[in-house]
């Protein structure tokens, strides 16, 4: 279990990085508008980063004993509902509920 100094350091690092990303661009708006490479990465990175994160979250899923079925069903429900209804809260709640129900019955 992580200790408090490490946790505080992790929070501090995250705050520094996140706030910098949000605030510093206002100081350098002109070069930001001009950099075509940054612009290209900004357009195409977000989807890619999120796909990586989905895989990262599910990488520990066990393959044996049908244990993969609960996360697979939950993922299908989440994605399917979101493609259909486009309601963030509904998709997440339903997907998580399916996962919880399948694991607890």
């Amino acid at each position: 279990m992580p200790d408090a100094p490490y946790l505080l350091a992790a929070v501090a690092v995250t705050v520094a990085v996140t706030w910098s990303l949000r605030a510093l661009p206002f100081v350098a708006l002109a070069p930001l508008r001009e950099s075509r490479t940054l612009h290209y990465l900004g357009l195409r990175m977000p989807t890619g980063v999120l796909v990586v994160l989905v895989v990262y979250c599910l990488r520990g899923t066990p393959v044996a004993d049908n244990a993969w079925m609960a996360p697979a069903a939950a993922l299908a429900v989440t994605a399917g509902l979101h493609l259909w209804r486009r309601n963030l809260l509904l998709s997440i709640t339903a997907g998580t509920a399916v996962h919880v129900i399948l694991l607890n019955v």
Partner: protein
Amino acid sequence: MTRVLLSDVGRPGLTSPAEPETRTATAALRDSFSVGIALVPLGLAFGMVLTQAGLDWWWATVFTALIYAGSFEFLLIGLVTAVTPLGTIALTAMLVNLRHVFYALSFPLHRVRGVRAKLYSTFAMTDEAYALTATAASRSWSGSRIVGLQLFLHLYWVIGGTAGALLGALVGDSVAGLDFALPALFTVMAIDAARERPDDVSGPACAFVAAVVAAVVAPGQMLPTAFALLTLALLVSLGASRLRSRRA
């Protein structure tokens, strides 16, 4: 006599500046409601996952109040329980929140007056705050209405997270599987991001391959490896498209 005079003089002086302020606050509360109300259940799930991971409930308050970047806070629970090196945490935070760099191009910070308000406004420039201030209706909003909106959104998230953590500490591990809220959140965000660029199929495909390769080749360093592979693939495809356009 003097008392009457004083109260007469005092009344407009006291009420007229106070009244628009309350009106601004009410307007900000109303603006924040549509999107903000989703933050409470998400915060509840966040808090419950946090206590189930073994952290004390008040870390939920610390995370939600100080970091205030919802999706990364969820991710951070897993990163800190695995005692991930701070460098990897910084890199991951940078990549997950990179999109915020581009919010500066259109976020109406110029309307927010005062250094402290500006600092808070950039700190609280979340996806939700950005989305709400990007609407046509928001063009007439004053700086204080925007900051007020951000304060309310921040408050929903802190309250939701803290309440979820207290609830999680109460029920313990009896409810398994709530941690799926995080991959569900990322799936939904990925679908929304992909919808904005329907022509870009190779980007998400590259990312999926990069993630699987990284998980197999470098399971201990999966995130930095996958992000490096993804950036490399995107830069190569940018270089190739520049070469093509130069030849054409």
